[in-house]
C-alpha cells in the first residue's frame, strides 16, 4: 500500500481511515533507524542546539550535506515501514548542561544514555534567568524552514510532515530548572516560575505557528510529559495556572491553519483529560502504558472526543515472546480500531531497547489485520 496521509488525517478527525489502520509513532531512535535502513546517521554533531545548527547552516557545506543525508535516511525509514508521514524536529532552543550520562544497556546501544539531573538546574534563580542565553525566534524559524525545505524535496508522494516541538511547555521548564529546584521555586518564587513558563511558552507557540503555516505539514505534535503512573507531576491547579494556557496557545496556532494537534504526554492524566480536551483543545493523545493508563481504557473513555494513538506497551515490545505478542497486538486492534480514530504504534517511541522483531511484527499485523471493512 502506498503512503496516503489521508489515513492518519481521517483518524485525527475521528473518522475511519480509507483502508487500514495508520501508524503513528512520536519518533524512532537513531539506532533503530540505522538498523532498519542499513545507513548511518551523521548530522548529530551539527544539531546540538539551535545556535549550533544555525552556525552550521551559514555555509558549512559538510554540515549541510550531513543534514540532507540524515533527513533522506529518516524519510526512507518511515516510507519503508508504511508510515504516511515523517516527523521533523529542530535541535533544542533551550540547551542545558544539567544532564547525567550513564552506560546504555539497550539492545541497540549507544555510547552513553543521557538522564536529567533532578537536583540541579541551569536556571534556579532570577539571576540565572537573566543570564541564560534565550533563543532568538528568528533563528528557530530559519533552522526549521531549512530542514522543512530539505524534507519536502525528498518527501514521497502521499506523505506529509508532522513537526515535533523540541520538548513541551512543562518539560522544558522542568529540564532547565531541575525537578527539585523547580518544585521549591513553585512555592518560594512564583514570579520566576511565571517568567520561565512565559519564555518557554512564547518560544514553543511561535514554533507551532511557523510549522503550521507550511503547506506540507499535516499535523503538529507536542511531546510534554506531565505525569507518572498514578497521576500528573503537578497538581491540576498548578497545571491550569502555568502549563495549560501555553499549551492552548500552541494548539490555537495550529488550529488556525485547520490542522490537528497531537499531544504526547507520558503519565496517568485521567484527572486532567477534560482540561486537555475542552480547554487546551488537543485532537489526539499519545503515550500509554498497560499497567497504569492502558490505551484500550483511554479509547473507551475518550475515543469519541479525541483520537487515540499508539499504545502498544513498551514492556511487551521489549520482552514479550513473539507468539503472545501477536495476539496482544490483535487484541489492541480489536478494541481500538472499530469506528476509526485510532492509529497503531508504540506506547512511547520506537526506542532502541525494544525488540525489532516485535516492532516489525506489530506493523505487519497492522497492515493485514488492521484493514477496515471495504467500502
Amino acid at each position, binding site marked *: 500500500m502506498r503512503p496516503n496521509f489521508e489515513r492518519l*488525517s*481521517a483518524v485525527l*478527525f*475521528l*473518522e*475511519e481511515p480509507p483502508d487500514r489502520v495508520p501508524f503513528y509513532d512520536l519518533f524512532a531512535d537513531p539506532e533503530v533507524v540505522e538498523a532498519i535502513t542499513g545507513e548511518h546517521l551523521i548530522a548529530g554533531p551539527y544539531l546540538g542546539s539551535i545556535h549550533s545548527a544555525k552556525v552550521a547552516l551559514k555555509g558549512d557545506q559538510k554540515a549541510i550535506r550531513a543534514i540532507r543525508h540524515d533527513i533522506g535516511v529518516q524519510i526512507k525509514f518511515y516510507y519503508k515501514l508504511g508510515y504516511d508521514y515523517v516527523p521533523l524536529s529542530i535541535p533544542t532552543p533551550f540547551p542545558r548542561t544539567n544532564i547525567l550520562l550513564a552506560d546504555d544497556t539497550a539492545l541497540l546501544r549507544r555510547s552513553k544514555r543521557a538522564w536529567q539531573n533532578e537536583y540541579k538546574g541551569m536556571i534556579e534563580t532570577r539571576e540565572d534567568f537573566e543570564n541564560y542565553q534565550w533563543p532568538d525566534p528568528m533563528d528557530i524559524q530559519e533552522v526549521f524552514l531549512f530542514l522543512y525545505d530539505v524534507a519536502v524535496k525528498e518527501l514521497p508522494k502521499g506523505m506529509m510532515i508532522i513537526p515535533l516541538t523540541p520538548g513541551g511547555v512543562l518539560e522544558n521548564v522542568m529540564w532547565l530548572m531541575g525537578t527539585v529546584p523547580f518544585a521549591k521555586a513553585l512555592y518560594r518564587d512564583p514570579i520566576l516560575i511565571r517568567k520561565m513558563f512565559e519564555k518557554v511558552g512564547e518560544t514553543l507557540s511561535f514554533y507551532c505557528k511557523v510549522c503550521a503555516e507550511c503547506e506540507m505539514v*499535516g499535523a503538529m505534535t507536542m511531546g510534554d510529559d506531565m505525569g507518572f503512573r498514578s497521576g500528573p507531576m503537578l497538581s491540576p491547579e498548578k497545571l491550569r495556572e502555568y502549563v495549560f494556557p501555553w499549551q492552548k496557545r500552541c494548539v490555537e496556532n495550529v488550529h488556525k491553519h*485547520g*490542522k490537528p494537534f497531537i499531544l504526547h504526554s507520558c503519565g496517568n492524566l485521567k484527572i486532567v483529560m477534560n482540561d486537555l480536551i475542552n480547554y487546551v483543545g488537543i*485532537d489526539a493523545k499519545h503515550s500509554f502504558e498497560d499497567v497504569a493508563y492502558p490505551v484500550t481504557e483511554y479509547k473507551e473513555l475518550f475515543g*469519541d472526543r479525541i483520537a487515540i494513538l499508539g499504545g502498544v506497551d513498551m514492556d511487551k515490545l521489549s520482552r514479550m515472546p513473539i507468539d503472545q505478542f501477536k495476539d496482544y497486538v490483535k487484541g489492541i*486492534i*480489536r478494541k481500538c*480500531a*472499530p*469506528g*476509526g*480514530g485510532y492509529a497503531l504504534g508504540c506506547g512511547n517511541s520506537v526506542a532502541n531497547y525494544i525488540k525489532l522483531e516485535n516492532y516489525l511484527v506489530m506493523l505487519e499485523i497492522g497492515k*493485514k*489485520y488492521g*484493514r*477496515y*471493512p*471495504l*467500502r
Partner: protein
Amino acid sequence: MVCVRRIQGIVQEIIRTDEFKEDEDGNKWYKCIFIVKLDRFSKRTPNEELPARLKNEKVRIVRWCCFDWHYKTGIRITLTPNETKAVLEGRLDLTR
C-alpha cells in the same frame, strides 16, 4: 488540505450476505448491509450541524467485512463523501 464533509452514525445492525470476494491473502470479505443511525458530521467540519430531518434517521449502506472486529455494532461509522452526498439528497437506502 481537502475538506469534504462526512456524516457519521452508530451501527445498529449488520446483515451478512452470502456474497464474498477473496483478497490476495485468501481472506474472504463478505458483503454486509450496515444499518446506521445518523447523528453528526465528523470533526473535519466541526461547525456543521446535521439537518434535523436526518438526525436519528436510519440508512442502509454496504460494507465488505472480513475480520471479527468488523462485525461490531454500537460503534461509530463514517459515511464516504459520496454516501454523505446521497444521504443529504434524501436517499436512505444505498445498497442498490
